[in-house]
């Protein structure tokens, strides 16, 4: 406000206006309170895993017991808003001390904008990770590692053991056996395969495709595609899409209107015998129905002589914002998150395959998953074709339900996917 009051302005008015403007200025520059309680440093972590809140709190409780000088405040933001909130907060310097990061292409915008720090020097443990894991943490331009991974997700078929036993079914070893089993279940009045991608949840169908695809494209397709030797219109990939269509008679009734949540509830509630998806479902299935007796197998191959492969990917990682308020404490926490101790706790608490293999899985479903992991190939559309816009998924997901319903041909979806990524894809770069 101007200090000198124009003569005609009544004093009260000037004072009032000054007060209003002053309070406005204060409210605009108000900053978020730093959270220091009982003399320890509070490290805030942001994550989109709202469902993991309790488990993560327990893991960090044990960390706090060993490091009384640090308190970890694990905060969650719903997935739908997460990226938006994080990018806004980090640009405004109002971010957390540690931030959960997406992987591969979705990690790059934060690196490009120089909002997160490389961790190669700060977390030495990262160096020992396998290359397939590093690929999900790397900046594509500088090759530095930007996050501490927490899980390598793989994909396959969850099956209800009770329903299988009740219908005298074995784990199918070939596609024909899977279809025969599905038919038996359908005749018995059980939903054979809970599936749905309506109401904007078709990412779940893309995840199911990740489980199904290796049976058609094999483990070598990824490298060929990244080298530019093949594209999505390759008959093997179109056959993978066709597989998703072929199983329609065995999906949830009213498939085109069923969404992901409904499908999972059908499996959790014991109304469906199978669910095709990612290994992160293990923890959520078990927590929502502790009595559910289920197992996991990789999606079966056509020829019994072949090996069944599983698609795998780094789910995400935890990184360090450039202007983290409690940087040193945050680095300490990140180093803890890179240990085998954290990996073991994470796995025991959540039932996800951890990012390290020097752990001892106790959970039977996890044992199935880790066994399937022995034959893994990168999740093609996610690891390989999400580096720039338009992504392969941005074409595949919207068309998925219509493709399964027979309104769009798999061949034409494959052509559109190829056309979309051609705008930016360069062989042997990614």
């Amino acid at each position: 406000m101007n200090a000198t009051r124009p003569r005609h302005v009544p004093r009260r008015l000037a004072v009032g206006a000054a007060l209003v403007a002053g309070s406005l200025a204060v409210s605009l520059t108000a900053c978020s309170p730093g959270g220091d309680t009982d003399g320890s440093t509070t490290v805030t972590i942001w994550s989109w895993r709202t469902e993991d809140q309790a488990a993560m709190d327990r893991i960090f409780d044990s960390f706090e017991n060993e490091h009384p000088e640090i308190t970890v405040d694990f905060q969650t933001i719903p997935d739908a808003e997460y990226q938006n909130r994080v990018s806004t907060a980090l640009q405004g310097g109002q971010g957390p001390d540690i931030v959960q990061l997406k992987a591969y292409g979705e990690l790059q915008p934060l690196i490009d904008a120089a909002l997160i720090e490389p961790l190669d020097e700060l977390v030495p443990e990262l160096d020992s990770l396998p290359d397939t894991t590093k690929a999900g943490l790397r900046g594509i331009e500088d090759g530095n590692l930007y996050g501490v991974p927490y899980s390598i997700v793989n994909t396959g078929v969850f099956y209800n053991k009770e329903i299988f036993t009740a219908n005298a079914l074995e784990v199918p070893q070939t596609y024909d056996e899977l279809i025969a089993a599905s038919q038996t279940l359908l005749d018995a009045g059980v939903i054979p395969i809970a599936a749905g991608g309506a109401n904007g949840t078709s990412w779940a169908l893309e995840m199911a495709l990740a489980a199904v695809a290796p049976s058609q494209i094999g483990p070598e397709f990824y490298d060929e595609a990244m080298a530019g030797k093949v594209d999505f219109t390759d008959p093997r990939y179109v056959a993978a899409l066709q597989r998703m269509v072929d199983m329609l008679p065995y999906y949830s009734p009213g498939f085109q209107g069923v969404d992901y949540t409904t499908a999972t509830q059908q499996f959790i509630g014991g109304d469906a015998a199978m669910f095709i998806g990612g290994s992160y479902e293990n923890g959520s299935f078990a927590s929502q129905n502790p009595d559910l007796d289920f197992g996991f197998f990789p999606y079966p191959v056509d020829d019994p002589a072949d090996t069944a492969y599983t698609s795998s990917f780094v789910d995400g990682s935890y990184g360090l914002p450039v202007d983290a308020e409690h940087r040193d404490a945050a680095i300490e926490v990140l180093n803890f998150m890179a240990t085998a101790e954290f990996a073991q706790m994470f796995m025991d608490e959540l039932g996800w395959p951890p990012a390290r293999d020097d752990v001892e899985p106790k959970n039977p479903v996890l044992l199935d998953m880790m066994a399937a992991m022995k034959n893994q190939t990168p999740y093609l559309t996610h690891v390989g074709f999400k580096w720039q816009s338009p992504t392969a998924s941005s074409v595949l997901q919207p068309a998925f339900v219509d493709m399964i319903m027979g309104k769009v041909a798999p061949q034409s979806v494959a052509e559109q996917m190829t056309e979309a990524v051609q705008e930016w894809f360069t062989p042997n770069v990614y």
Partner: protein
Amino acid sequence: MSTDTVATESDGTEPMPKPRKRTVRRAHGLAGWAFLLPALLVYVIFLVYPMIRSLLGSLWDWRGMRAQSFTGLDNFTRLFSGQNADLVTNAFWHNVLWFIGVLVVQNMIGLLLAYILFVRGARWTFFQNWFFFPAILSPVLVGALWRLILTPDGPLDGVLMGMGITSEPLTLLGNGSTALWVLIAVDIWNWIGLPILVFLAGLNALNPEIFEAARLDGASSGRTLFQIAVPLVTPSVTTLAVLSFINSFNQFDIVYVMQGVQGGPNFATDTLVTFFYRLAFGAQGSVGITDVGLAMALGAILFIFMTAVSGMALRFFNKRAEMIQ
């Protein structure tokens, strides 16, 4: 804006012997500004400045959520070429259909119901509140509610299949040819109270003698509605048309809650704002990478388009209103 008022010498009836001196003090102007300042500051800081920034931002190349280099109209060219062009056109027509649906259906039903309530008078106040009830709910709640009702094997299917009307789940939201109409219907259900309220206010403001005269002349109720009530509530129609336009072209929440940010199935319910959201913030289910430059370009176009159309509509209707009066 000048707040200086000119003192009129006379009002034209009888000349005053001595016009009373009214010196308009500048201080009043300053005081006015002082009162305006806080609101004006808020307006400029939170509205004008970001608007100008995003309009300018559409001329830059963005990488990693930061403006990297000046590219002129390149974002606009990219927005109207290849697959983006299809998506923009597709979304635009959905907005147009939405607007027509709301304008025609919602306002027609609203006018009819308002007229019935008007004729019935105070005894039917209960219905007035009943019709307005959905409007007090957040569109997010409304969307979630209808999504539950419409889910396969949900309440609606339960009723229809129980009565033997259908044998299979309906899946209206999963079907590209019905999904958009369902969403528009839900939006109409959500906001039907608004036109009722506006029309009712318009009808109640009219001189009751007009209707009395019509009744004595033996005009049928239909004729009274269309030849007397409708022309006289034209100003309300103007307001509602502009409001419908703005709401339809800013449509986001119902689509977002019921069909996700991709406007599924297969973009059948995609709108300009859901498309904008995907470009600016990416999409749920890790579908894509953001493209802030494109988002800014689309935002700029949307802003200019909405302002121009609303402005023209208001001018046009104001002229008409003057003619009627």
